[in-house]
């Protein structure tokens, strides 16, 4: 099965003031079908350039890539026919209403039943009652939803969104998350680039982290968390009814324990490998009230790899 997005050594070099800038540097990316894929990276990491190359609006300097099986250089028009794309900072005609703007796009892409499609998309994003409002009079959240609506007009199996939540208030972000989950449940693959993790980070099933034009890590979120724990260590938090300083010395002598700290009645143990059964049996006599493995968050992964 062809993955919705696949790139091999994709590169983009710009010339700025006589200097060569490698905005995207040998990117190998594979987005699994049906995933909610987060392309993470700080501002200027090369995310938008990569997305524009995938959509065919920027030509790569080297490497190759396919989107839904279409070549990103030779078949870019086909890609934009099939993929719902929401670029960063998109806008519409200010003196036209939400409905008129969507109708214009529906006609532009040659939909057979433009009116029906527009109505459906406006309802899906919750803008049906505001369809007669001019774009110039819409709030940021409503504009963002109109952006999603235009991407959905093609009824795409792949949605590509570049920084979709920037400038959106918390309510808007929550609404956005709900919508993305709903669209994903319908079987669509969703590819989102962002640097705002706290807003949509929880949605991602897979991520790739970009740094200075390169993909430094990619995979499923659960695999990456495992990977991070394996690299940095496993942190266990244990609440004890009878804490004692003696435990620290004893626990540190266990094979695989790097460090142990006692904070009140909470014992924090850092291990180089998974040690849950050993620790539990060792701490049996000390009145264990709770025992948990502290898993790294998406932010930890991002911080670790984005530099």
């Amino acid at each position, binding site marked *: 099965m062809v993955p919705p997005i696949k790139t091999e050594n994709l590169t983009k070099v*710009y010339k700025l003031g006589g200097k060569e800038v490698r905005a995207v540097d040998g990117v190998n990316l594979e987005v699994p079908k049906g995933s909610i894929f987060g392309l993470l990276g700080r501002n200027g990491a090369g995310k*938008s*350039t990569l997305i*524009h190359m995938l*959509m065919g*609006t*920027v*030509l790569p300097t080297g490497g190759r890539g396919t989107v839904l099986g279409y070549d990103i250089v030779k078949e870019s*028009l*086909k890609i*934009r*026919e099939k993929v719902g*794309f*929401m*670029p*960063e*900072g*998109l*806008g*519409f*005609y*200010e*003196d*036209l209403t939400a409905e*008129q703007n969507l109708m*214009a*796009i529906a*006609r*532009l*892409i040659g939909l057979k039943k433009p009116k029906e499609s527009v109505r459906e998309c406006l309802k899906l994003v919750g803008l049906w009652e505001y369809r007669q409002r001019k774009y110039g009079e819409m709030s940021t959240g409503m504009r963002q939803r109109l*952006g999603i609506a*235009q*991407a959905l007009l093609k009824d795409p199996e792949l949605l590509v969104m570049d920084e979709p939540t920037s400038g959106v208030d918390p309510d808007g972000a929550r609404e956005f998350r709900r919508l993305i989950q709903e669209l994903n449940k319908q079987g669509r693959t969703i590819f989102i680039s962002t640097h705002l993790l706290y807003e949509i980070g929880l949605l991602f099933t897979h991520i790739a982290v970009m740094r200075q034009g390169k993909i430094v890590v990619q995979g499923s979120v659960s695999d990456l968390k495992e990977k991070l724990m394996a690299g940095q260590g496993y942190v266990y938090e244990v609440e004890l009814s009878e804490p004692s300083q003696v435990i620290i010395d004893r626990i540190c002598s266990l094979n695989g324990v790097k460090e142990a700290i006692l904070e009140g009645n909470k014992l924090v143990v850092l291990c180089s490998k998974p040690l849950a059964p050993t620790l539990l049996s060792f701490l049996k006599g000390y009145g264990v009230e709770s025992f948990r493995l502290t898993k790294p968050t998406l932010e930890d992964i991002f911080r670790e790899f984005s530099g």
Partner: protein
Amino acid sequence: MRALEIARVEFGNIVRSNKFLAIVAIFTLMLLSGLCRVTEPSAATFEVPSATTHEVERVESDVKLGLKVMNAIGYSVLMLVPVVAVMLGFDVISGKVEKGIVRTLLAQPVFRDHIIAGTFVAGLTSLLVGVAMPLALSLSLAVLLLGITPSLADVALLITYLGVVAVFALAYYALSVFFSTVTGNSVKSLVAGILVWLFSSFMLPSLSTAIIRLLLGPPKFEQVQMGQMIVLRTDPDYMRKFTDLQNKILSLTLDYHFRVIQDQLLLGPGIKDYTGLLVLIAFSLATLIASFTVFVKREVR
């Protein structure tokens, strides 16, 4: 087809905008004021004593209504049309880039040349409508309110004149679109357009005099006997050289070429020399092609 679809939407957006409505209103009022002024007693009247009653009859000179209107509004057109064209064109491309419309359009199966071709078609159509609508409106109002009934010849003359005005407007519009495309910034584009207009309309005419004086030296005079008086007259040869040089310098501006055509129309027999018109059309085409090339070659970053 995609370019035409974009043109259709663009045109709809332009004609709904307050800017466009304001421009149409200004043009209509200008034409109407020109039509109003022709109802005033003409300066070119003369008095004839009646042979039978010894009363004095006022006889209006036989000047075409169309020419009177052109005379009345000619100067305002020369001053206002460039400003209006710059106002229509300064954000045609940069505004679309700044507002993210280009990004939205490029998210669809269209190429950059579809976008700019559609934009040009919409812009030119709105320019034509912006010139034709005021004509129709002002003539209708003149007939209804002022009781002026223009003859077919008057209407034909006014249509020719407005056609020339449209070409003049197109030249400034194309220049403004070029600035808008190259700078990608509406403020810079507006400033550039206004600066060109100020330079062409006000600065260069004054500067040209100074330049010619530097080249030819101070004016030469000759003494001419007029009856009992001796008057000083500028040397005709000096004046001829002065005028030739001034025309050459001012021919660098769009205003000059429009004025040459306007003067031909005002003199009555119609346009005999089409050079000015051709220069304006060639300039418009060249700048539109340049804008097209710049826009198409630019990548989204």
